[in-house]
Every structure is written in C-alpha cells, then in structure tokens.
C-alpha cells in the first residue's frame, strides 16, 4: 500500500516535471492563437475572425519581409550545411580533425550578436577590409558609399548566419559520424576509386544526414526567425518578418497586438513551408536518377571546385575569427579614423567605465545563466531517473521539449507575454528564468539524456545487489560515470542562456537586462568603443566557461567507460 502511494507520488512528480516544459509552451501557444484570431475579451474583442489576416497584407512591404525571411532561412541553412560538410570531408582523415573541436568550440560558444558585430566591424565601408585596401589600392580617402552591410537582399544576414551555424553543423556532424562506421565507409569509397569529395557525398553524407536532420530543422526555424542578428545585418526598408512583428507589437495602437499575433502565426507557417520545401528537396535528391547523375558528374579526382569550396569554408571561419579580434581592438582603441588600420591611441578607459557601469548587468546575466542551467540539469536528471523507475517508455512526451526550438522565438514569446500580462504575473526575473529554461533544456537534454541512459546497466545492477537504493545508485554510480557529460551540458546551458536575446528582451521588458541585450543596444546606438568592450566580454565569458569545463572535466572525472 505504502509503495503504491509512493509510486503515485512519483507519477505526480513526473507530470509536474513535464509541466515545466509543457505548461509555458501551451500557454505561449494559446496566448498567440487567441489574439491572432481576434479573440481578446479584455480588449473588447470577443468574436473570432480572420479579419487581421486580411489586414496583414495591407501593411506596406510585408511581402518583401516574407520573402526575406524565407530566403534567409533557406540559404543560411543550406550554405551552413554545405560548408560544414566541405570542411569536414577535407579534414576528415587528417590530424586537424582532432583539433577541429578545439577551434570551433569557442566559435560555437559565442552569441550570435557577437558574430554580427564582428562582421559589421570587418565588412562595412569603414571597416577593416576597406581600411586594409585604402587608399593604396582603392584610392579611397573616405569610406565609399557601398551598400554592403546591411545590404538590400539580406545577403549579409545570410553570411552572418552561415558563419554562426557552420560550427554548429560541424559539431553535430562530428557527433553523428561517431554513430556509424564512417571510417570504413570512407575506405570502401576510396577502394572504389572515388575521390574524397564523391565518397563523402555519395556514401557518408546520406548516413550522416539521417542523424542530423532534427538539427537541420532547428536551424531552419532559427535562421528564418532570427531577431538579434537581423536587427544589425538585415536591410531596414523593409526588414525581415521577425523584426516587423517586433515593430508592430511595440507600436502604440489598440489593435497592434492582434496584427502582431497574426503576423507571428504567419511566421510559424513560413517555417512550416520552409521545412516542407526542404522535405521536397530531400525527396528529389533521394531519387535514383539524381544519384546516378551525381556519380557521373562528380569528379573522381581532387577537383577545382572542391578546393574552391574548401578555401571558402576556411576563409569563412577565418573571417569570423578576424572579425572578433577586430572587435576587441575597438574596445581598446581610441580616435581610430579611416583609413588607419590600427587605432591611434590605446586606452583601458572604455573597459573601466563599461565595467563600472555594467557590473550589475554582468552579475545578473551570470546569475540567471547559472540558475537556468542548474534547474535544467536537475530537471533532466530527475526526469530520466523517474522514467527509468516507473519504466515509462513513452518518448513522445520527450519530443515535446523540442517544440520551443521549432516555433519562431518571437511568435512564441509574444504569446507568453500576452499571457503574462493577462494573468498579471509580477516577477520579471522568475518568468524570464522559466522561459529561458525552455530554450536551455533541449540542448542539455541532447547531451545529457543519452549519457544518462547509456550508463552500463551492469554497474547499476551490481550496485543494487550490494543493497544500494536508487538515490545512492544515482549519486555514487551514475553521476560519477557521467560527470563529463554533466559538466559539459551544464556549461552549454550557461552559454546558451547567456547568448539568448529575444526572451530577455521580451520577458525581461527592460527590467531584467543581460549583457547580450545591452550589447545590441550599444550596437544600434553605434558607440563603437563600448560595443567593442561589450563584445569583448561576450567573447571572454563563454570562453572562460569553456575553459573551466575542460579543466573541471579533467579534474573531476575519476573513471569513465
């Protein structure tokens, strides 16, 4: 009887835990759907209608915004995937492959906004590249009036996203490669007289693709609805769909909430269409004739295209590194006029004043990140343990945690915000933490879930046979076994939380601000020196966290199998 009650209690806990994820998601979606269809009783609108969807298309330039979002989502994902594969195939069998993780981890840890700032400093007409070439080559004594960054067609936004997502795909692919005998397949391909290039695309990539498909869809959803990068890199007349939603939502008009919500729903559809489009492409590429065509056309030897693509890929990674280093120079330099390549004066003043003025912001950013990451990790561990204990096998519920990654951030957050105002919830900090958990848990789960479940059952049964109860087995066997994954996912959680922009902007509502939001404010207000300093911190903090993880991993991992 007592045991039954205990099990009941555990089941309730399980349901409560799932509510951490499902609750906000559910209310966020509700808060989006009701106003989108014109239902918001306290605004005096009780009847459901499609009126606002008609109104949408009267907004000037909305079609161009739609197209921009669509093209950004597609091309950024496509090129990021392409370049990640090119880089991977060129170095797969070399020694560099083992160092690749070290090179890309810092890039991966940087917030998107940092990459955008780096690009801005680098490519704008007054940026480093033009400074390097002027005036000896171009003859420019002052920056030319070139419409490069941001540009008319959103190409620089795509470039920025490619830079940021390529390392992400690289990491995902490297994880996926370990799941199948890629090396053997590689050898088979070579023995069949294929070049590395064709071996990769014909034999390895199809295997790989199956395993990173989810990641690809996450990237599509993210790139098509990105906010922070678009604010800096997208053209402004008009901007992408997510920026338009933001602008409309924040304009002081009585029906702005309806229009913004319906537009946010349209964005969900844009992403659905994009994913369907991707499916269609998959189907076409999967046809036999396409493979035959590829086999015939792909060169057997090292080709010029391959070299070109590889050079571009490496160039892209270099570009992001140089951009970031250049941003550091802006933080330290003063009176840096065109076309000087280096600042005239170096000073630590900007650094000192920034530290003095923003120490509370940095503290709160770290605090939120730590709390969010900690809660996420604990939730995941408890969840997996409970599932194991109750032999709960339904994985459907688990796939729900990925929902927040597929809904465009801005659409989802508008819903959450509407809901929060409706309910009259007071604490901005608590709601922000609750929302950030939604975005952190999926990534932590990808790392931690398999590790927890993959612990060799024999150890556990030995522990059980020695009379250790479940809690003891968890703390003394499982956790020591997975310390490395646990710490890594804890660090990743911190890094993701630190880099989030839209949730902080929306839910924090200015009352709770983090470094990322502050950096974007500075970037828009164009105080380059402060922006440089803020970017420097954006770079230093995640890399420090990475280093700490690596160090503690080495220190605390006692044994692993």
């Amino acid at each position, binding site marked *: 009887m007592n045991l039954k009650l205990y099990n009941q209690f555990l089941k309730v806990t399980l349901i409560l835990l799932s509510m951490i994820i499902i609750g906000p998601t559910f209310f966020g979606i509700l808060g989006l759907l009701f106003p989108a269809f014109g239902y918001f009783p306290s605004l005096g609108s009780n009847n459901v209608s499609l009126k606002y969807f008609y109104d949408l298309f009267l907004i000037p330039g909305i079609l161009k915004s739609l197209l921009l979002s669509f093209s950004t989502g597609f091309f950024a994902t496509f090129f990021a995937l392409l370049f990640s594969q090119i880089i991977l195939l060129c170095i797969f069998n070399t020694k560099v492959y083992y160092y690749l993780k070290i090179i890309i981890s810092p890039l991966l840890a940087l917030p998107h906004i940092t990459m955008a700032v780096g690009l801005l400093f680098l490519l704008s007409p007054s940026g480093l590249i033009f400074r390097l070439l002027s005036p000896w080559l171009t003859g420019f004594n*002052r*920056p030319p*009036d070139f419409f490069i960054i941001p540009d008319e067609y959103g190409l620089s936004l795509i470039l920025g996203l490619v830079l940021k997502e390529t390392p992400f795909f690289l990491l995902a692919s490297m994880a996926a490669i370990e799941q199948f005998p890629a090396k053997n397949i590689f050898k088979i391909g070579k023995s069949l007289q294929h070049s590395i290039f064709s071996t990769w695309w014909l034999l390895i990539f199809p295997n790989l693709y199956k395993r990173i498909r989810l990641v690809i869809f996450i990237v599509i959803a993210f790139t098509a609805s990105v906010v922070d990068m678009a604010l800096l890199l997208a053209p*402004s007349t*008009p901007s992408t769909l997510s920026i338009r939603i933001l602008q409309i939502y924040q304009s002081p008009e009585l029906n702005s*909430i309806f229009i913004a919500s319906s537009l946010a729903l349209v964005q969900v559809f844009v992403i659905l269409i994009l994913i369907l489009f991707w499916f269609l492409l998959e189907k076409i590429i999967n046809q036999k004739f396409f493979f035959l065509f590829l086999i015939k056309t792909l060169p057997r030897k090292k080709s010029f295209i391959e070299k070109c693509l590889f050079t571009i890929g490496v160039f892209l990674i270099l570009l992001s590194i140089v951009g970031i280093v250049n941003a550091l120079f802006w933080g330290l330099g003063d009176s840096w*006029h065109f076309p000087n390549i280096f600042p005239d004066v170096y000073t630590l003043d900007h650094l000192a004043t920034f530290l003095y003025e923003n120490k509370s912001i940095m503290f709160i950013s770290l605090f939120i990140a730590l709390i969010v990451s900690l809660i996420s990790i604990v939730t995941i561990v408890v969840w997996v343990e409970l599932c194991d204990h109750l032999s709960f096998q339904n994985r459907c519920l688990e796939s729900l945690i990925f929902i927040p990654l597929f809904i465009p951030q801005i659409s989802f957050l508008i819903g959450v915000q509407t809901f929060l105002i409706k309910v009259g919830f007071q604490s901005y900090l608590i709601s922000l933490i609750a929302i950030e958990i939604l975005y952190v848990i999926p990534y932590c789960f990808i790392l931690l879930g398999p590790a927890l479940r993959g612990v060799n059952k024999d150890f556990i049964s030995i522990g059980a046979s020695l009379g250790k109860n479940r809690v003891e087995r968890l703390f003394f066997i499982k956790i020591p076994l997975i310390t490395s994954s646990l710490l890594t996912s804890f660090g990743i959680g911190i890094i993701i939380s630190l880099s989030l922009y839209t949730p902080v902007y929306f839910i924090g509502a*200015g009352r709770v601000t983090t470094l990322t939001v502050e950096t974007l404010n500075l970037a828009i*207000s*164009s105080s380059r020196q402060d922006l440089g300093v803020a970017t420097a911190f954006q770079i230093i903090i995640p890399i420090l966290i990475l280093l700490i993880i690596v160090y503690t991993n080495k220190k605390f991992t006692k044994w692993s199998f």
Partner: protein
Amino acid sequence: MPLNEITIVKMKILSIIYSTDNIVLCIFFKDKFKMLNSVIKRNLFHILLYFIIISLVFVFCSSTYALEKKSRVLKNEYWEKIIKKASGQTIYFHAWGGAKNINAYIKWASNEVIKKYNIEVKHVKILDTSNVVARILSEKTAGKNKNGAVDLVWINGENFSFMKKHNLLFKDNWIVKSPNTKNMDFENNPGLLNDFGIVTNGMEMPWGISQLNFYYDSQYLKSPPRSALDLRNYIINNKGRFTFPQPPDFVGTSFLKQILIELMKDKSVLQSTFVKKNHEHLLNPLWSWLDKVTPFLWRGGKNYPSNYLALTQLLADREIDIGMAFNIAHASNAISEGKLTKTVRSYIHKNGTLANVHFLSIPYNSSKKAAAQVFVNFLISPKAQLKKQNKAIWGDPSVLSVNKLQLEWKNKFINLPRGVATLNNEELQLKLEEPHPSWVKAIESQWIKKYGSSK
C-alpha cells in the same frame, strides 16, 4: 471781569471737572460738544467707512497672512508626506538609453536621490518611447491598473498626446506641487506647459529644452546648406553623403517635419489637427523634395541609420558630411568624448529649426507615484539642472528661469562654459514651432509607405 475772578472761575471749573461727573462737564462744554457732534454727524458715514475699510483691510491682511501661513504649512506637509511615503521605494524610470552621457547623468541623479531621499531609481534603457506607451496601453487593456511596469517616463510629442488621449497618465496637476517648480517661469515660457501645441494640464514636468541642429566638419565643408532648397542641391551634388535616421525615429521624423515647414507656404495650418482629406495634399511639397533627394542619399536611400547617434559615427568615419541632433550640445559632447574631430561645428537653417521641450511624466498605474514625484522634483532642482546643462555632462539647456534663481545659482548658470561647437543663444534665436502631433503619424506612415518599404 477782573483777572482774579477769572482765575477763581477757572479754579472752580477745574475743581468741578475733577470732582463732578461728566454731565456737568457736558453742560459746561455744551457748545464745544455740539460742534463736535455736528462734525461727527456730518462725517459719520465717512468715518464709518474708514473704520470699516481699515478693519476690513486688517482682517483681510491677517486672514490672508494666516491663510498663507496655513497653506505654506499645508504645502510643506503635503510634500513632507510625499517624501516620507517615497522613502524606500524603487522606481523604474523608462528613458531612452542610447546615449552614454545621458545614461551616466541619470545614474548620477539616482545616486543622489538614494542618498538624499532613500529612493532607488532603476533606469530602464529603452530604444523607442513608443514601446513604453504600447506597454502601458496593453497593461490598461488587460486591466492592470496597479503596479504598472513603468513608474516614470521621458516623453514628449505624439507619445504624450497618445497617452493623454487614452488616459494613461497620472493627472492631479502634480507638477505644481513640486516645490522646485517655483524656479520656472510659466507665464513667459508657455512652451513649458504646451507639448507640440497640446496643453499638458500638469501631467508632465518640463525637463529640458532642445532644438534641431546640424553639424559638419569645417575642415572639409566650408559653407553648409542652410535651407531645405540648398540642402536638396547639396545632396544631389554630393551623392551618398547625406542621410537621416529612419522614421519613425524621433530625430528622423523631426527632420521631415523641418523640411515640410520650410517648404510650406501657409504654416498656420500645421497647428490644427491633421485631417486626411483636407490636408493630405499639403504634404506634397515634402514628397516631391524627397523624391528628388532620396536616390542621392547615403546607400541610395535604401538603408537608413537607426538613430541620431549612428550619424555621429558615420560623420566620424566620413561616410556622411552632415549630421543632426536635437541636443544643441551634441557635437561638442562628441568632440569632448573623442568621437568627432575638433573642427566640427554646428549650424541651423536660416529660417530657424524645430524647437521643443522634453518632459517627464508618471503613468496612471504606477504604484510609486510619490517616489517618482520626488525624483522629478530633484531633476528640476537647480543642482540637477546645472549639471545637465554642463557641456561636459550632457549640455541640455535648463528649463529653469535664471532670473528666478538665488544669486548663487544664478551666477553658476551664467558662468557655465559653452562647448566649442555649440551655437550661442542669439544664433539659436530662430525657433520653429512643432506641428500638431497628428501630423507626425501622417508623415511617418506616408514615408514608410513611399520610402521605407521599397516598392
């Protein structure tokens, strides 16, 4: 009568006077009394009148004195109460947070009030005031009439007009109750009580005065264009070297208004509410000006900087030739911060430029109105205003009337140095009045339609 008799009679009389009662006296001096009586009777009315007037004056004086004393006590008590209530409160001050020097000034002010009144001020750095208005509106529509997110907002123009129209502001004529308003000269500066032609009704406290001004690097540009037409020619002759912040940014829209006013023949119509069918054609001069100019703007008019600070960076990089700002000391500030070279100078158009006042107001659903009032009162104190007007801090002209200040403060204000690129008061004499706020919306939405969403 012999002298002796007379003296005897006198003695008798005196004795009678001293010994007998008044009746005897009356009889004796009957004649004299009669005279007096007649005089009194004749002038009785006047005498009474004098008496009444004197007493009335006395009563009036004493009562007003008493009243005055009482009211002063009342007022002080009221303010004391507010200060007492405010102690320990935390307010969220939503103010544009793009400029470092302004942020630093607000930080200084918050440090002062926490020391003096134990009020914690948290500066919520926003990018666009209309977002704050939208937030308060959504709170009102959701029925959140208490504990609003915003306790104080930096505002003017159409945002104020919108909030006033939708009853989103704390009314109660609170600005008069702030003791430091005594230093403001409302009679001679009606602009302090009018925001873009809208009467403020004591719902917003004047904080500073601004005027649209342009700046350029005198090293490269000898004589800047000083009118809308000259500017048009300049832009066409110097492709890609002029731009303005993208409307609906405040400065960008103001620039469009400035051009409209310069091109308009009958400017008086701008003071009335914009009616689409009557007034839409009046905007045509502006659109034809922009049609000619836009292809020659920076980035071909296909991209615009997001705010006026971005212009500073562009001018520093020499991407553009002319910048603009509403703060008359902006160029000087940028020079002293090392962002612009020392050769940068300011100018205004020869027929004057838009001038306005920026204000502070308290949303209706703030639960910390007392602390907000105390903070506002501090912000308009001579100390805070002097610091604000200092070019090394912010350079925003004070709203106080120098003549009303105590001598000590008066001298401090008069002796404030002006920045190298700041125009003096004579040069800034020509001011244009802001159009009615309803024109802003019309200009913005039309601009977005025509130029902000590439056809």
